[in-house]
């Protein structure tokens, strides 16, 4: 059983969640990122996700370790899907279990924030009138030219 995975097939929420459930954990949170149809009024038709797979799995694993340094009893599992995803489909499932619930929320949110910072996965939005690689990990800026105007990674 791999707790940190990049996959091409649809993700089963239950299967990812089961990886972190255990008798010492009273609280489990999951985050499920899905393909949204409208972003700021613009209609997405579908997305393509691409990953540097080996490094992405390594970085997901690093995020799990960072969480365990902060919340020592946490268990973490993350699966991210790549390839073509239709509207409403699941791109990522993050499951975190902890003995008490507050930590389960905090650790889970920490995971998604870190994914958007350090895990080499990119999405290409496809609209009716074009397509673009989304170049900013905070999902706020796209770079039609492929030239990010600011260094957000070091910012």
């Amino acid at each position, binding site marked *: 059983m791999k707790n940190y995975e990049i996959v091409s097939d649809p993700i089963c929420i239950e299967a990812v969640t089961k990886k972190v459930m255990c008798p010492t954990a009273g609280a489990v949170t999951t985050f499920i990122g899905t393909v949204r149809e409208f972003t700021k009024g613009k209609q997405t038709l579908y997305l393509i996700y*691409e990953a540097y797979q080996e490094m992405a799995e390594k970085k997901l694993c690093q995020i799990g370790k960072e969480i365990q340094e902060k919340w020592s009893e946490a268990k973490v599992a993350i699966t*991210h899907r790549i390839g073509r995803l239709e509207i409403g489909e699941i*791109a990522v499932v993050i499951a975190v279990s902890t003995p008490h619930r507050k930590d389960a929320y905090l650790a889970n949110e920490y995971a998604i924030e870190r994914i958007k910072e350090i895990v*080499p996965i990119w999405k290409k939005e496809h609209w009716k009138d074009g397509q673009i*690689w989304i*170049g900013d990990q905070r999902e706020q800026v796209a770079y039609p030219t*492929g030239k990010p105007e600011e260094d*957000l990674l070091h910012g």
Partner: protein
Amino acid sequence: MVKILWFAHLSEAVGKRELEIEVAGMTVAALKKQLQEQYPDLVLEHVLTAVNEEYVADDMVLDNGDVVAFIPPVSGG
């Protein structure tokens, strides 16, 4: 020889996904400069570099067999 991996819009800019190149002994910064001369459409200023699956600084010296990946701002999740 060093293997270079291209992703997302960088792969479209250079028109390929992988490239083998003789740059052992060079720094990452020097490699970037050479690639930008070779591919005028390539912009690497705001792109991170990973060597053997770990992020590295621009002054790192490359070795034979290294796998270099250029990592534009990520957008997973």
